[in-house]
Each structure stands twice: as structure tokens, then as C-alpha cells.
């Protein structure tokens, strides 16, 4: 049973650039949530996708956008990167409509220089 997978594992960008991160949910899951985790902090909710639509959004600017595909996989896009966007980006999946526990992937480590 495949768990949540994310790509790439690591990424280095410069300020002002754009980045796309990818996530494949756990087998049988159809809901994907994205979190940002700064060093030494707990994860912060960015948004959640279900049925290819953004269902919930946290306190992140519009530079953060996402997409969910018919196969339930998802992308997180960040435009106009800032140094402060350096973090571990985590994807979590769950199964609607019961919306049970969210299971996390290994994350993508983004460094903005």
C-alpha cells in the first residue's frame, strides 16, 4: 500500500522565482492538504483540495496556489519566492467523506537564496 509521496525531495531557488511541488496521496485517499513547516516549528496549514477544488485555506498570500488532478494528485505553486518561503513543505492525504486522519508525506525541503 503506497503511502503519500512527494517530489522533489530538495529544491534550491532564488528570490523572485517560481516553484512547483508535487504530491501523490495515499492509495484510496482523495483529499490533499498542504502545510508549511519552518525550522523548529509545527506545520502551518496552507490549503486543502477535494474534488479538484480548494476547500479550505489558511493564512497564506495569493502567491501560494494549488491544483488537484482527476487522479487526486496535487501541486503546490509558489510565485515570487521570498527568503522567508524557505521551509519544509508537507503534503497530507485523507479520505472524504469520513475525513479521517491525515497522513503525511516526507516533505519537500525548499531553500530560497
Amino acid at each position, binding site marked *: 500500500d503506497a503511502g503519500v509521496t512527494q517530489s522533489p525531495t530538495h529544491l534550491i531557488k532564488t528570490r523572485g522565482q517560481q516553484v512547483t511541488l508535487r504530491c501523490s496521496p495515499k492509495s484510496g485517499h482523495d483529499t490533499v492538504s498542504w502545510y508549511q513547516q519552518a525550522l523548529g*516549528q*509545527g506545520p502551518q496549514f496552507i490549503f486543502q483540495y477535494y474534488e479538484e477544488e480548494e476547500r479550505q485555506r489558511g493564512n497564506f498570500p495569493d502567491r501560494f496556489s494549488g491544483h488537484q488532478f482527476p487522479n487526486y494528485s496535487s501541486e503546490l505553486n509558489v510565485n515570487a519566492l521570498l527568503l522567508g518561503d524557505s521551509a519544509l513543505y*508537507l503534503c497530507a492525504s485523507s479520505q472524504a467523506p469520513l*475525513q*479521517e*486522519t*491525515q497522513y503525511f508525506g*516526507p516533505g519537500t525541503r525548499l531553500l530560497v537564496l
Partner: protein
Amino acid sequence: GESVGLHLPTLSVQEGDNSIINCAYSNSASDYFIWYKQESGKGPQFIIDIRSNMDKRQGQRVTVLLNKTVKHLSLQIAATQPGDSAVYFCAETTNQGGKLIFGQGTELSVKP
């Protein structure tokens, strides 16, 4: 702002001892709580969850206690092992499966 707080940022225990990690949550409307374990370089791993209609739930070597009166959550790990060394996060939500609010984490260090 929204937050789930932890009383102790670090906890050091001897192998074989029991560990207790505490968490204070701020939203009295939260109805679902999860403990996650995060090892270095990895994503959070689900340990155990509890709904607000319960006050105790047990898993394999782990027990979660919920005290809604004082908005307190704890994770007890029995016979702590070196492999239990990690950062532990509690998380809360008012919509099971929706936005999770995490605390800052407690680092558990197990001495052999």
C-alpha cells in the same frame, strides 16, 4: 493567533522509563485531536488520535488523555525506547480531516 501549545519543549528520559508529553490547546470548539511523531528529515507520522467525546484512548505502548475542562492533552509512552526519540506534535481540528492546528513540538530524547 491560533495555536496549540506545549508545556515542555524538550524531554529527556532513560530507556525503559515511561514518558509523558503534554499539550494545551486553545480552541474549546476543537473536537478531534492527533499526536504525530516526526523524526529528523521525515514527515509527521500518525501515532494516535482521540475524539472529544472520549477522555482516554490506548494504542500499542501509547495512551492519549484528553481533559476538556482545562483544554489539556497528553501522550504517554510506556517503556520508552531509543527509537521513540523524535519531536512530538499535538494537533487539533474542529473539522475532522480539515485544517489541523499544530503546536510547536516537544523533542523527546531517550538515553540508553
